[in-house]
């Protein structure tokens, strides 16, 4: 069965520190990979996506993610976080052009 795992439900971090939010998926078949962000009391918006090409993908607000096929991972990183990055982050995978599977979300809490 297809699945997406976000191991960390909550990640506390101090402002200006680096952060990595982990995402692993179940299968090495053709995949499209996405990270969405949901700011408090707002809807979901796309942060970045991997469809093909370079395995390092850059998104909005200084975030980037790296597709690692052998480890079936798509971890999200930012070298220096801001208070405004406090939000919930969702990893999503589309297997074989089929439906999307979402992870359970990681709540990033940036402290001053």
């Amino acid at each position, binding site marked *: 069965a297809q699945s997406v795992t976000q191991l960390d439900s909550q990640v506390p971090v101090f402002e200006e520190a680096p952060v990595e939010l982990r995402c692993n998926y179940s299968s090495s078949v053709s995949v*499209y990979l*996405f990270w969405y962000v949901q700011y408090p009391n707002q*809807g*979901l918006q796309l942060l970045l996506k991997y469809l093909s090409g370079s395995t390092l993908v850059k998104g909005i607000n200084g975030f980037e993610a790296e597709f690692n096929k052998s480890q079936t991972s798509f971890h999200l990183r930012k070298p220096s976080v801001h208070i405004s990055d406090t939000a*919930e982050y969702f990893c999503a995978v589309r297997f074989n*052009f*089929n439906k*999307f599977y979402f*992870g359970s*979300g990681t709540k990033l809490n940036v402290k001053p």
Partner: protein
Amino acid sequence: GAGVSQSPSNKVTEKGKDVELRCDPISGHTALYWYRQSLGQGLEFLIYFQGNSAPDKSGLPSDRFSAERTGGSVSTLTIQRTQQEDSAVYLCASSLATDEQYFGPGTRLTVT
């Protein structure tokens, strides 16, 4: 262009009543999804429509929930005999075959 729209934005209903939630996807998008997000929780997949294929109903929590998509466009999610545990934000998203999902603003359902 227009994004995904949902109506109503807020719905308050009494326990035991039926409700209908509407989603207007982006024109030309072949895939449509319904999700539920309870307070402080992640995304719970409900149902997925792809073109003219039979919908994937594997996420519907009970037979009180149903959805249809007319003419490959507008979708309606119906909840019969609402219960307090149905209170949540219901999100609709649409996509092309090989692209990201675009989310609507959601309908906040409150069952009193």
